[in-house]
């Protein structure tokens, strides 16, 4: 079976949709477990110096501390939660007090992504593509019950929870959650930035299902997995 790394590295749109067809599995796979592949193949995870050695924790703490004060989310609102996200950007709940002033329109300048609203199967490949185009390190906040679990939209065209597409750091429930709830979610993301833990750290690569034909296997033929340092 081809091996699909999480998130879909280089998966084309049809692959994302075919994977969605059967519903996608990924288990948290405990910290440190799993065979994360050679350095350049790993997805984020331990910050590696050129020699492949994991960076000492102190430097990572300093970097995390530096990053934590300006988490710039991607300007990406789907549905009603986006209106509450705009209210958080407005003048009463002003999130620019916490350094999240600039909602960057292009993923290249964003530090992370707030998925605000239900994600339909038509939108799924685009959410995955936007997530992948955000430079590391990145964090994802799933805002609203629709992004977390599909909420009442138990229908044919809705992805039941964005965490079957992209690894999610913080879940903010509510329909729509009040701006204060989203603000607390962003504070929790700040904590994760300080500890520089990402949602994709502990993820082992998950085997794809057989529906993926060999030709379409996203990940190139893998060299024998070396014993890398899993985080």
């Amino acid at each position: 079976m081809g091996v699909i790394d999480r998130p879909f590295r280089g998966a084309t749109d049809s692959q994302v949709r075919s994977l969605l067809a059967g519903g996608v599995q990924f288990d948290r796979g405990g910290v440190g477990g799993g065979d994360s592949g050679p350095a350049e193949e790993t997805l984020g995870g331990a910050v590696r110096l050129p020699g492949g050695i994991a960076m000492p924790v102190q430097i990572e703490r300093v970097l995390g501390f530096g990053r934590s004060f300006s988490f710039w989310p991607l300007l990406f609102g789907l549905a009603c939660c986006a209106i509450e996200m705009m209210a958080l950007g407005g003048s009463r709940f002003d999130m620019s007090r916490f350094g999240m002033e600039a909602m960057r329109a292009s993923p290249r300048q964003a530090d992370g992504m707030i998925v605000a609203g239900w994600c339909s199967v038509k939108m799924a490949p685009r959410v995955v593509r936007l997530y992948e185009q955000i430079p590391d390190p990145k964090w994802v906040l799933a805002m609203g019950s629709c992004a977390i679990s599909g909420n009442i939209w138990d229908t044919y065209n809705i992805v039941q929870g964005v965490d079957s597409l992209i690894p999610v750091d913080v879940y903010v429930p509510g329909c729509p959650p009040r701006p204060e709830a989203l603000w607390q979610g962003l504070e929790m993301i700040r904590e994760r930035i300080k500890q520089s833990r990402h949602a994709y750290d502990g993820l082992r690569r998950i085997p794809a299902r057989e529906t993926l034909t060999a030709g379409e296997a996203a990940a190139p033929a893998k060299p024998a997995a070396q014993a890398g340092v899993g985080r």
Partner: protein
Amino acid sequence: MFAIGSAMAIAFVTISHFLAPTSKNPNKGQPYECGVVPKSDARAPFNVHYYLVAVLFVLFDLEAVFIYPWAISLRSLGTAALFEMFVFIAVLLVGYIYAWKKGVFEWE
């Protein structure tokens, strides 16, 4: 002095290149098209008008670059420099009016 300056610049680039955690994947390399698979290559041919406007902007921006140091040291240069700058601006003004009449700025 120059060595320290250039060393710092190079250091900033190389350190962040090594320390930053990166994940290589083909999707990340592709041009950003609002979340959609890009149809044509990013280097698609585009209208020459963009190029004209860009070049004119660079030209008149450089004119401004020359004016700043002149404005700062005007007192020490004396009044002669004042009129020399007017000549400089006049020459560029002729170019500006020519471009305007040529209709470069209208988007027809």
